[in-house]
């Protein structure tokens, strides 16, 4: 981690713990609120330590509460996040008291699932399906080119679970082989009858959309499986845009997942 970041984190910690005098506190706030990068770091610190949640549960010390309130008065983003947290907390309690919480337990987290026997089974199913599908594609492709010897062409399938992220974090994938079939697994987070997914290049001057598929449905464990030839994903930065089908036949944006494909030897 960047040493400056560590120093800043210590300073933020001191601010929240009330270890700065009144004037230093004001100086601290003025500095952080005047620098977008440091302000984002400060917000990240507040979120990571769940200060809004702890504030609402009255779990903060007096110093922490003072500092947190000052931050929220000065920063409308943190203030709005506090109000949203309060709405969520009160809303859930209200629904629970009225017996209106949706029934049914959740599955294990998908991270856990990826290490589970079910994942192995799902992976096997996908492997079979995608191999068959990719085989068909290759067959079509080769027959269009008049090549008959397609039986000798082999394909491998790779499943790549992607994580929806915010900020700078991204998913990194070594460049797939040309004959590899890549299946990106994305958790859209929201339930729709059907989805559209597109893979778009970002920050380049080449054709932005390199792959698109509509009519997708969630597979087990609420993942979307986006299968594509490995040759689609050349090194570069992409975003996987997921949209949900609406009643009027259109699509609405759900999420965009960043993906970086790096050369295989990087």
């Amino acid at each position: 981690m960047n040493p400056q970041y560590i120093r800043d984190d210590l300073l933020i910690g001191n601010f929240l713990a009330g270890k700065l005098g009144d004037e230093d506190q004001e100086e601290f706030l003025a500095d952080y609120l005047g620098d977008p990068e440091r302000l984002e770091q400060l917000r990240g610190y507040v979120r990571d330590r769940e200060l809004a949640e702890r504030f609402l549960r009255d779990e903060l010390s007096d110093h922490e509460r003072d500092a947190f309130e000052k931050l929220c008065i000065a920063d409308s983003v943190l203030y709005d996040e506090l109000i949203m947290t309060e709405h969520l907390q009160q809303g859930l309690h209200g629904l629970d008291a009225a017996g209106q919480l949706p029934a049914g337990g959740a599955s294990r987290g998908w991270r856990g699932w990826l290490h589970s026997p079910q994942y192995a089974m799902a992976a096997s199913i996908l492997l079979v399906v995608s191999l068959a599908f990719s085989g068909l594609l290759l067959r079509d492709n080769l027959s269009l080119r008049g090549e008959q010897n397609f039986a000798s062409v082999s394909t491998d399938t790779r499943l790549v679970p992607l994580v929806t992220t915010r900020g700078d974090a991204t998913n990194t994938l070594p460049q797939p082989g040309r004959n590899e079939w890549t299946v990106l697994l994305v958790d859209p987070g929201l339930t729709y009858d059907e989805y559209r997914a597109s893979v778009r290049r970002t920050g380049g001057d080449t054709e932005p959309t390199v792959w698109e598929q509509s009519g997708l449905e969630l597979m087990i464990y609420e993942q979307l499986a986006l299968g594509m030839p490995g040759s689609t994903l050349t090194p570069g930065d992409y975003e996987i845009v997921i949209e949900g089908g609406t009643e009027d036949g259109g699509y609405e944006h759900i999420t965009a997942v960043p993906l970086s494909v790096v050369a295989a030897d990087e």
Partner: protein
Amino acid sequence: VTDTQEPELEKQISAELAERIGRGDRTAEQRVCERYYQRLLHFIRRRVGGDMALAEDICQQTFLKGLEKLRNREIKNPASLAAYLHGIAVKDVMNETRKSGRRATSADSELIDTMADIRPTALEEISEEQVRAELHRHLDRLSAHDRDVLIRLYLREESRESICASEGYSPQQFNNIVWRAKERLKKQLLEPADARRQGESKIVNLTR
């Protein structure tokens, strides 16, 4: 009052407002009220146990004192007005809890009128019933594991560590789940009710 300023400019905005007030600019005083009054009131109200009338009295006093200091250029760090006002408010709340009676609000009727006219933000104005209705819709559409995270975190008040440990999430994945759920709910809550009604009637027409 719509706060259209970029939050990263807070330092500059604060310093500029302080400077203008020092020059006798009454519009800048109103701008300070509009910018910070509602947020400060929220925390004062919480500190006085939910008594809105008392919180409003204290909040008005805080601004009157703070603005007086600004007019006289007596604030050491004008780039941090929010912290300064909060400091006055905290002292006033402590004083108030030691008193039995309500203080009389000192006279600056123009500013007091300004403060009285300040409306909560759109997000704050949403009633509990609206929140419950939208949240119910929202939860229905959420994936089961995202829903589970929200319920465990906000209803059962489980710690992030225990949820991450049992579900196999990294802290970042966990933060992202919570963040995207809040963002979507916020969007839903702020979607104007009439726009939603229009959308619903369109769907009804299509199904006829």
